[in-house]
């Protein structure tokens, strides 16, 4: 089953130096229960691709089909809803809200989805057990270590059971132990939930553990 499809996706960035093609006619289909690694040198368009696939940015041309919905001409409001229901994000930095507790951070997407607070909290508790942080549920986010914060970010991205999880260098700030832990969490969670994991990484070890590796060079898919 194809969860996400990119058809001739291009993005040209307007920089002070002029127009720079960040992504050129990228096409790929992303299946459920599969893990995709996007690799390539810095500035090759990996993050641009991820933001386009995550409906955070608009392509200059091409089309993205998310869970059977063509997203090219839909409104910003619908895109926001689609992101909430179908996409999970993990970034290099966790971007947790330090003023909120661990549980509150995790349930934010679920509350936006319309889940009652009790049900969302119950889901968060299950996820916290999965990531081994059940005992720290009521701590404020800033009181956790970097690795723990990133695990909470993973739990937050999974709470709505999104069909597609997009991870932009999720282990970039972590040590080897935590890197492995985060990748395992993401890949197992995706396989268990029937989701697609697309992970942008420089880490060749992690890329090797993915089902498919996509290599970008100068905005073009080279392999």
């Amino acid at each position: 089953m194809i969860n996400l499809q990119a058809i001739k996706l291009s993005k040209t960035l307007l920089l002070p130096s002029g127009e720079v093609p960040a992504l050129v006619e990228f096409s790929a289909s992303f299946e459920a229960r599969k893990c995709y690694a996007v690799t390539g040198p810095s500035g090759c368009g990996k993050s641009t691709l991820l933001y386009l696939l995550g409906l955070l940015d608009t392509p200059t041309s091409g089309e993205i089909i998310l869970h059977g919905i063509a997203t090219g001409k839909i409104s910003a409001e619908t895109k926001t809803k689609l992101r909430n229901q179908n996409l999970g994000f993990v970034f290099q930095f966790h971007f947790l809200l330090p003023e909120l507790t661990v549980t509150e951070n995790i349930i934010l997407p679920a509350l936006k989805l319309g889940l009652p607070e009790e049900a969302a909290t119950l889901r968060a508790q299950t996820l916290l057990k999965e990531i081994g942080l059940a005992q720290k549920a009521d701590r404020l986010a800033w009181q956790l270590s970097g690795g723990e914060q990133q695990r909470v970010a993973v739990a937050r991205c999974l709470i709505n059971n999104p069909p597609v999880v997009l991870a932009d260098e999720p282990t970039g700030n972590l040590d080897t132990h935590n890197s492995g832990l985060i990748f395992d969490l993401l890949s197992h969670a995706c396989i268990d939930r029937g989701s697609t994991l697309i992970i942008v990484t420089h880490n060749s070890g992690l890329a090797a553990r993915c089902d498919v590796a996509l290599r970008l060079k100068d905005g073009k898919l080279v392999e």
Partner: protein
Amino acid sequence: MKPTLLIAWRFLRAQTRAAAMGIIGIALGVSFFILTQAQTRGFEEFFIKTILGTNGAIRISDKYQNSRDYVEEVASNNERHGSWRPTERTYIEGVDYPNALMKQLRPVSGISGISEIVEGGADLTLGGKTYHVRMNGIRLYDHLRVSSLAGQIVSGDLSSFETNSLPILVGERLAHRMDLKVGQKVMLHVGDQNTQAQIVAIFQTGSGDIDLERVYLPINQVRTLLKKPFGNSILQIGMDNPADAPALAKSIEDSFHYHAVCWQEREKVWLDVFAALRVSSAITVCSILVIAAMGIFNTLTMMVLEKTRQIAILMAMGYSTADIRSIFLWQGVFLGSVGCVLGVALGALGTFMVEKLPIKIRGIFSTDHFVVSWNTSHYVLAVVLALIAVFVATIAPALRAAKLQPADVLRGGSL
């Protein structure tokens, strides 16, 4: 709890000091606004009460002379007939047929009473001291219906005014100046007419000039002294709703061609002074609200700048621009609401305390303590102004936050 409300509350709680400053600023602005309005409006209302209780809502005096029509008539006739001379016009002092006019006016709705007054100057003498006074000849029963004379008596008894053969009411300042006491007999001189009157009561209107110069006598006595057996009257009108006085005065002028002056026109200078004071104090106090709003604007703008990445991730997880906007607007609502509640409470407490402060004012009215007005509109206006200030201070950062492009922020760009 709505997630945006939860986030707003937590953001604000993390900025305790800035939030407290914002709340204190709003509370002070609201309370000072209420306090100054309560005082200025209080004194204004007291002044209005004094003048209405002394001179009524409308005074009808001379036959209305429409000078503009008169000039136009002369000009037009000169054009047609060359050196045309208008017929002499006799000036008619006072209301010439008071009973007929009163009969016409009594059925008019909104009029609570009409008192016929005959005015004239006289010299009042006691023990070698003489003071020029303004006699007001009244029928007590009628006059009490259009004035607060009953409540203005500070010494003596009004009932004697009806029973005494030659009663006189004197003002408090005149009594003080001439050392007059209730029961004493004074002499009144008008030209070659002299009469003796007994002081039955002393009144205090609060208006310095009136308390010094005005004396009340039975209308027939004054007519005799002034040798004006009929006409020459002034009609003082009391109204159920004094605010309607200008319309009624105009209607009387149009219908009966008498000069009718409402209290708003009569006391325009003082009323303008009070209005100017009220607006001036409101403008001054609003500056506190503006400063408080600037503080809130600063706090929220800094918050937006500090939290761009958190805002971007919220957008990535499905929070709309409206949600992001509402996170900041909720903070404004909280600061504004708490500030207003505190401000209203402080304002009410301050007003209550100011009312107890002693101050001796004589001249345009008489009071021995601060006069305040407990008017709900001051509280509503203060809250509305504060909420507008907070809204203006909040909306810009909120819009700025909602305008963020998550991809740009996460890519490392700026606002």
